[in-house]
């Protein structure tokens, strides 16, 4: 598992797995889309808009997961002085931002038919919007500071402080009585969720994960190279 914390090992490992991962992500995405659009039923309540879920939920999960990864790497990098953590953070932030953006956009598209409005200021939506802005700030920090050594530390500390937002997002629906998703949540949490909806959701989630990994590998490798040249 050394490849997770060491850039040389990572490079070796990444070269091995890159092609399979790329292929897998394409295949899974196609399969998932086919399932989502053709092989899953309309919801009896929501009609065909329920299909937005197959984009919305995976991207939401991944936006959180990406941030979690960044938090872990920040701790590793700061506490154990492992610069690879900074590299991962720099590389992965835009990916997380894009997932968050996809989550917000798909959520809004879903919200218009469901709630009759694009946006409301309930706890979950607001905290996700804050997450998006935090991602943006991390990216700005990475772009606009000149001194690499300084900026990666600033970014890592910022990530750590910003991670307070994660539990807020995750549990906002439980803690506060919010508009977000009363219907589907109870539906999904039923032990007997309709497998015809569960399967595409899972496939899409795995596809999203693999897409994320593909981009991450590319970005981490370029980041390693640019740092070697400084």
């Amino acid at each position, binding site marked *: 598992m050394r490849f997770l914390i060491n850039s040389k090992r990572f490079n070796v490992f990444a070269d091995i797995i890159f092609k399979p991962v790329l292929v897998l992500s394409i295949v899974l995405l196609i399969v998932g889309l086919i399932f989502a659009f053709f092989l899953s039923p309309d919801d009896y309540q929501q009609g065909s808009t329920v299909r937005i879920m197959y984009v919305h939920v995976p991207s939401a999960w991944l936006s959180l997961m990406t941030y979690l990864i960044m938090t872990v790497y920040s701790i590793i990098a700061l506490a154990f002085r492992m610069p690879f953590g900074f590299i991962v953070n720099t590389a992965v932030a835009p990916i997380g931002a894009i997932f968050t953006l996809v989550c917000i956009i798909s959520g809004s598209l879903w919200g218009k038919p469901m709630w009759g*409005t694009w946006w*409301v*200021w309930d706890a979950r939506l*607001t905290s996700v919007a804050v997450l998006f802005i935090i991602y*943006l700030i991390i990216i700005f920090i990475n772009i606009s500071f000149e001194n690499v050594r300084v900026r990666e530390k600033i970014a890592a500390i910022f990530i750590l402080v910003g991670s307070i937002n994660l539990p807020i997002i995750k549990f906002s629906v439980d803690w506060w009585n919010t508009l977000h998703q009363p219907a589907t949540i109870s539906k999904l949490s039923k032990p007997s969720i309709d497998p015809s909806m569960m399967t595409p959701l899972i496939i899409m989630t795995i596809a999203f994960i693999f897409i994320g990994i593909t981009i991450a590998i590319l970005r981490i490798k370029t980041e390693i190279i640019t740092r070697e040249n400084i």
Partner: protein
Amino acid sequence: MIFLHKLLNFYYREYKLNLSGFQDILTNITFFFISIFIFIFSIGPEKETYSFLGVGILWTLLLLSSTLSLRKFYQDDFENGNLTLLHLNGFSFELIAILKTFSHFIFVQIPFLLSIPLASILLNVGNEKLYRLTISFLLGALILSSLGSISSSMNLLNKRNYLLGSVIVMIFSIPIIIFSVGIININENFNSLVGILSGILLITFAVNPWASGACLKIAIQNN
């Protein structure tokens, strides 16, 4: 042709000074959205209020953002001698004032204007209002830029008290804001608002090169 060329070159310079790339525009826009967030967090999330408050919040932010950037208007170029340099290269003070005003509009106000559609979704400002809001903002932002030019060139004469300029801008913009917000919310008389705003705009446009130019000239003499 040569004149046009000169203008383009001026704006190339302004672009380099104001934005080191797309990320700066994004930071600007982010700043606006966070400000909106702050309002929402501090005022509370009741959505019905916003369809009414939204217009006011957006106006206040427009005002604050143009005040925020007033210091950069002429100050930097004045202090490092670039204003003199431009003048010696055939840009009269009046022309500099006009160009700088538009540059403020383009590089400070436009990013804000661009984010209005999205902001009005967030603030639940309805579609009909959005149209009127945009038009009046376009005019209002130009007015604010002209006022900003006048007051920040005045600030060059007055080395200590940099806030004075901002205060002048704000005092002058109070009537404009009252008019605009009122009429946009009331849903009537929109054409008369456009008329009034255009009138004010024309006046400030006429006064600006003359007033700012004079201030710039005196400032350079006394430096």
